């Protein structure tokens, strides 16, 4: 995007107080996750049975869990998994949805009908149930989560992009391109995709938050990322015990806060992007 | 006789991302009783903003920063909102460019006109209001008003909607009509109908009107006097024949010569070169100087803003070298 066009949008993004704060927080979480092996200080999977459920100390910043593993080390390593699953599944869902939406909007007719009915079907499925079943069939893993999440969440982007494509298709500059012989795929590549990108980015960002949350839920239930690999969701498994919740907050508070704050931050960024992209609609 | 409406040294500003946009910059106008003042200008000339400020309808963050608007002796800009509302719609009525957005799509047209009447004449009985609406619809040439009364805007054609809006504007027999591009959205045959209607309304009710348009044809058709606006200022102000026959400002002359006339011979058109100035960074001297053949390079034009100067017959023009042939 051009500097001249982007700058008012950037200014609108910055004017929304929470969005830049969210972005800073996410950047910090991202850096921590990327640099996990460097900052962790401990092997996240190293079991130390002599020191389990120890409160925070100099040696273990956030204490140790039920197997004596360092909670801080697990937290930052889990961040890698959670963020990766969230980003990748959102990216896959949005990419698939954008492609299908653009094709449906541009070609119309039977293709449009098939794609949109498929989107309706996917949206009307209780996706959590589908995911639980698929997780059972395919076996729990991070890759499975990404695939299943993408398969269940493409319709949102698809609908947005189809709508935008329908209106772009009638735009005179697209008509002009058709008039000098540009095919529909060329038009999609040259005019539709760049034009829908901002809106798609908003949908994608908000989806990341949902995906992180969903990953946490499934991993917590044992259907997602399986131990010993850490994810924020499966770290919460310890919190199933009421005594532990009351007496040992370091076991569940860090992953719980990580999930809550990250999801919140992503949503703030998404809202800020929406303000930036569509200054009229957002506040209403 | 004192004029009905006197706008004096009006200035309206809009804070923008790149600075302050002065949309109207020292505009003075007068409209006499029963007179039609044509305000002509291109997009961005400030003609619509001027009209909006007369009604106190400048949308924030835009605001009037200077000047006064006296209507029948009262300063409208100083009036409390409630008093202004009572004048608006009753004594001053507005006709907008787009008849579709000016009507509420979910309320029957008759009921909307009835509401306009009841708002200002609350004591009128239901039957009397209805009769008045039917009379109004008939007077603007809507056939079968009894049937049309209960119909929604989407059941009206474009021309009928504009006629209904005129009926609504006339509902309370206003003293002043402000029509902002009333014919621009209409087809040629409807344009002439609507102009005819405005002319009739003026003759029958004696209402004065401010007719805002970019179309010199509309001005030629209807206006008694004309104000030509450019870049937020009135550059020429005079009686309609003066403006068309002996224009004094080079911009007015440019406008007249760039328009192919239906009746004129088809020679080459003489366009005004360039485009209007950026109002965020207006030229220091005359705003028209960069496009003006007369001005070209003269120091006065580049450095000093020309103030309106009167010639014979109250014909004002804001030019350092008025009437000088290009």
């Amino acid at each position, binding site marked *: 995007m051009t500097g001249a066009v982007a700058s008012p949008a950037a200014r609108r993004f910055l004017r929304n107080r929470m969005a830049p704060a969210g972005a800073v927080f996410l950047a910090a979480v991202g850096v921590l996750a990327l640099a996990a092996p460097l900052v962790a200080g401990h092997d996240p999977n190293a079991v130390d049975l002599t020191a389990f459920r120890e409160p925070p100390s100099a040696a273990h910043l956030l204490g140790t869990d039920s197997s004596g593993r360092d909670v801080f080390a697990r937290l930052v390593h889990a961040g890698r998994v959670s963020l990766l699953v969230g980003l990748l599944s959102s990216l896959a869902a949005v990419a698939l949805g954008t492609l299908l939406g653009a094709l449906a909007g541009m070609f119309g007719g039977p293709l449009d009908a098939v794609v949109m009915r498929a989107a309706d079907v996917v949206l009307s499925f209780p996706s959590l149930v589908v995911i639980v079943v698929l997780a059972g069939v395919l076996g729990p893993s991070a890759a499975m989560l990404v695939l299943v999440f993408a398969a269940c969440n493409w319709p949102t982007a698809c609908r947005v992009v189809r709508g935008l494509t329908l209106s772009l298709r009638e735009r005179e500059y697209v008509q002009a391109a058709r008039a000098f012989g540009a095919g529909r795929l060329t038009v999609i590549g040259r005019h539709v995709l760049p034009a829908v990108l901002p809106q798609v980015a908003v949908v994608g960002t908000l989806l990341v938050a949902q995906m992180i949350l969903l990953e946490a839920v499934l991993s917590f239930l044992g259907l997602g990322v399986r131990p010993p690999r850490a994810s924020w969701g499966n770290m919460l498994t310890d919190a199933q015990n009421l005594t532990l919740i009351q007496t040992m907050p370091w076991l569940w508070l860090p992953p719980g806060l990580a999930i809550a704050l990250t999801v919140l931050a992503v949503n703030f960024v998404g809202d800020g992007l929406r303000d930036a992209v569509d200054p009229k609609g957002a506040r209403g | 006789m004192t004029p009905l409406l006197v706008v004096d040294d009006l200035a309206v500003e809009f804070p923008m991302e790149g600075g302050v946009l002065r949309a109207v910059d020292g505009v003075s106008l007068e409209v006499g009783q029963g007179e039609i003042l044509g305000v002509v200008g291109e997009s961005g000339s400030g003609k619509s903003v001027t009209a909006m400020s007369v009604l106190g309808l400048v949308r924030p963050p835009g605001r009037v920063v200077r000047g006064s608007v006296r209507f029948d002796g009262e300063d409208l800009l100083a009036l409390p909102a409630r008093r202004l509302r009572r004048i608006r719609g009753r004594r001053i009525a507005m006709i907008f460019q787009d008849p579709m957005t000016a009507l509420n799509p979910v309320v029957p047209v008759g009921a909307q006109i009835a509401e306009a009447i009841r708002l200002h004449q609350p004591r009128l009985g239901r039957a009397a209001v209805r009769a008045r609406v039917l009379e109004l619809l008939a007077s603007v040439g809507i056939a079968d008003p009894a049937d049309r009364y209960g119909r929604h805007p989407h059941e009206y054609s474009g021309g009928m909607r504009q006629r209904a809006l005129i009926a609504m504007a006339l509902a309370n027999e206003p003293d002043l009509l402000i029509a902002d591009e009333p014919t621009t959205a209409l087809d040629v045959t409807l344009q002439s109908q609507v102009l005819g209607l405005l002319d009739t309304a003026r003759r029958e009710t004696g209402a004065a009107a401010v007719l805002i348009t970019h179309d010199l044809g509309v001005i030629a058709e209807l206006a008694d006097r004309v104000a030509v606006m450019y870049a937020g200022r009135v550059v020429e102000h005079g009686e309609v024949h003066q403006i068309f026959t002996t224009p004094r400002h080079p911009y007015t002359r440019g406008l007249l010569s760039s328009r192919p006339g239906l009746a004129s011979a*088809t020679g080459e058109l003489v366009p005004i070169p360039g485009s209007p100035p950026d109002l965020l960074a207006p030229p220091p001297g005359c705003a028209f100087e960069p496009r003006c053949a007369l001005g070209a390079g003269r120091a006065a034009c580049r450095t000093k803003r020309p103030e309106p100067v009167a010639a014979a017959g109250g014909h004002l023009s804001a030019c350092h070298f008025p009437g000088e042939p290009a």
Partner: protein
Amino acid sequence: MSEPVLAVEGLTKHFPIRTGVLRRQTGTVRAVDGVDLALHPGRTLGLVGESGCGKTTTGRLVVRLAEPTSGRILYGGRDLAPMSHAELRPLRGEIQIVFQDPYASLSPRLTVHEIVAEPLRTQGRYRDGGRERVGELLELVGLSPEHAGRYPHEFSGGQRQRVGIARALALDPRVLVLDEPVSALDVSIQAQVVNQLVHLQRELGLAYLFISHDLSVVRHLCDRVAIMYLGRIVEEGERTEIFARPAHPYTKALISAAPISHPSQRGGRRRIVLAGDVPSPADPPSGCGFRTRCWKAQERCALEEPALTGAGHRVACHFPEDSTTADPGGCYGGKRLKSDARRPDVAGDDDISG
């Protein structure tokens, strides 16, 4: 007269009306209903009519942005109407279109250079000398090639319209469809673009189809004029003929309604005010489409559709205005129908100042 570079015969576009859940077709909008036109090199045909008359759809059909329902588009000895998009592709560049809205017709995300280069790239002609060609094109339409790196929003409406024209010229067209190219522009800018179009035509020998509702621009620019009403051409002829001796009542009404250019002409001409509204193209009247608003309509007009007849100056009317007595005062000729609404309100008392 020279051979037409492009001719349209019986061109028709019907849009289906679908209703209900099953999207069953319940009617047809006859947007364009049997139009014949011929465009000649170096000449301009004006296509005039009010909104909804089908003039824009006709333009889109000629450049095949819409699929004709029937009819022929003859260009270079071939019929473009039945061609597939692939067959059409190499011919696309030769028949180009300029749109009305200089804001919507340029992509906000591309530089002016990219916009003008787009047709060249699409047709694979950018590689040899495309950059220079874009510069030439911008100069041709009166823009500085140095501005090629800017985005459309940095230009005024008139400059944008020039960019649109440069883009349409990129592939060396022979026919240019101009769809209200100056209607969205300010008066002082309109003249710049109109003059530019005149120059380009002289220089490049282009054939123009100039679609407009603005009679004064049409009169200034066009050699021939076709008047459209409800999807059909009702009158067609040389400009001077049409304006001096309009034969169809609708043409007459249209010309009488056009704005005057000087206040001294006030009251100086009869204004024919048409009764009622344009009928819906989904449910056109029987016989002559104009009869519901025509002050000359008789029984025959409801029964029989008038054909576009005549040589040179063609008119589709059973009771055309007599060219020798071009007096609208005589426009009540023939038996008047009983409805009063059919009678025009005639204002003023002199003749139409032509």
